[in-house]
């Protein structure tokens, strides 16, 4: 006969969501304590894709370690590389040429759009709408094609080097980006038509996964997750790097603290990113794309911290140097790790179906959490 279903001593049902589960988008493992359909506790178990990138970087030179970080948050690989390049440049005091800075920012924003597009599709799939996923991929493919042409790869571009970018822009780059922007503008309302305005979607998102402002700060949430709770935390605004202080864009803040706010923040961020790209695409200054650097980079003894705004939040790179060619200790403060820790707080008391929606709005990328 049927064995007794696994329960804990309180008679609650324990369910393992993951490591292989359609909603975890990777190998996240959540142990969920359920009372009926209501969640009592969510306990993440990590490490299924831990590659110890921090340890690995300790044996790589300052030129080499950048490529490894593409594999952390593979959806915003370019921005990860940017953080590392910034940190090395900070230590070496390399002046990045104006052209390289503009190229970097354009690429960052394109990456952000691509990442948010994928998130939009995946999140729609989490709550049961399959069609948006494919529509999202159409836009993302266009960006990937642009990336492929200039950087030579679609996902892990490895286009950043300390002191600039690896190669100059492809001659067709501006034309293609403009074509993409005009194409994208005809499709941007689709998100509202298919999901945002939909009554089922609204009911699924409104008022679930509440993360108050205090909790968001206490849990160290950053990025759209925290901005959906009304925390002002866009690194591009509060600690501007590269040329972000000269650009016109708004920091998107929603004060709803729920899943819908986090969703709306990301959708509006796409528009802000488009705005940045539009500002820059016609104004790429001439000049070098790379500063002259020594063949072997040696960071002076000391500690260096740089942070950037990835699509998921604040990525910090903390390098402790002993003056050698390799970092002595390197720490990546990944946004996903902190955001995930708030999941338990958000999920308690809501239904199992909402957990999936919440995970969707957190935009979890598991390699980013595990590193």
């Amino acid at each position, binding site marked *: 006969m049927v064995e007794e279903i696994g329960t804990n001593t309180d008679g609650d049902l324990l369910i393992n969501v993951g490591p292989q589960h359609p909603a975890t988008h990777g190998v996240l493992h959540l142990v969920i304590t359920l009372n009926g359909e209501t969640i009592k506790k969510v306990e993440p178990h990590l490490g299924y894709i831990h590659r110890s990138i921090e340890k690995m970087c300790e044996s790589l030179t300052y030129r080499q370690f950048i490529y490894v970080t593409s594999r952390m948050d593979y959806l915003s690989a370019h921005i990860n590389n940017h953080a590392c390049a910034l940190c090395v440049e900070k230590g070496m005091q390399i002046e990045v040429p104006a052209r390289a800075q503009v190229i970097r920012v354009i690429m960052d924003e394109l990456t952000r759009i691509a990442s948010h597009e994928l998130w939009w599709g995946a999140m729609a799939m989490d709550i049961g709408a399959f069609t948006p996923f494919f529509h999202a991929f159409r836009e993302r493919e266009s960006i990937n094609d642009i990336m492929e042409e200039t950087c030579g790869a679609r996902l892990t571009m490895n286009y950043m080097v300390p002191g600039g970018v690896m190669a100059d822009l492809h001659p067709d780059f501006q034309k293609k980006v403009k074509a993409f922007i005009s194409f994208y503008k005809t499709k941007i309302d689709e998100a509202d038509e298919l999901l945002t305005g939909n009554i089922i979607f609204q009911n699924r998102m409104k008022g679930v996964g509440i993360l108050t402002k205090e909790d968001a700060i206490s849990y160290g949430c950053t990025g759209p997750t925290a901005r959906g709770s009304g925390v002002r935390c866009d690194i591009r605004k509060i600690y501007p790097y590269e040329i972000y202080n000269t650009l016109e864009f708004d920091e998107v803040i929603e004060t709803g603290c729920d899943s819908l706010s986090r969703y709306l923040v990301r959708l509006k961020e796409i528009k802000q990113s488009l705005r940045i790209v539009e500002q820059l695409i016609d104004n790429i200054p001439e000049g070098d794309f790379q500063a002259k650097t020594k063949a072997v980079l040696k960071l002076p003894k000391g500690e260096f911290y740089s942070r950037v705004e990835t699509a998921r939040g604040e990525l910090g790179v*903390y390098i402790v140097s002993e003056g050698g060619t390799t970092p002595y200790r390197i720490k990546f403060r990944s946004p996903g790790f902190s955001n995930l820790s708030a999941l338990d707080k958000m999920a308690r008391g809501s239904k199992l179906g909402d957990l999936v929606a919440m995970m969707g709005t957190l935009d979890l990328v598991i390699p980013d959490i595990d590193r």
Partner: protein
Amino acid sequence: MEKEELKLKITELNTTATFDETGEWLNVTVDAKDWLPFAHQLRNDPVLVFNYLFCVTCIDWKTQLTMVYHLSSTHDRSNTVVIKINLDRNNPEIESVSSIWKTAEFHEREVYEMFGVKFLNHPDLRLLILPDGWEGKNPMLKDFDDPVNMIRL
């Protein structure tokens, strides 16, 4: 807040703290036993309000372990300090601050398994990333040697 102001303010809170101003931010070194009350003061001080702990990590200096806490405030983003606490490498123990900053819970668990630092009064000090039943050295320590190293193979 300027580094000097921060320094004055922190000296008021903890007289034994030592400072290092070479980095980008003010580095404050305190004793492990002072850490928890000091953290409470940093968090609840009406002027400083260090409510945002954005990075917790540990450095293995081979002779000692150093816990590094990066603190900032959402009220005044220019307030940033780096708190460093040196620990005995053979028996690293420190009070957990997860009651003050919730984010520390996960970060401390990560440091616990990677460096073997014991966090006292941590609500749930278990392995987070390493597989259950991991035995042997903590992987991020400098004298850890991975038996399977793809690059050196």
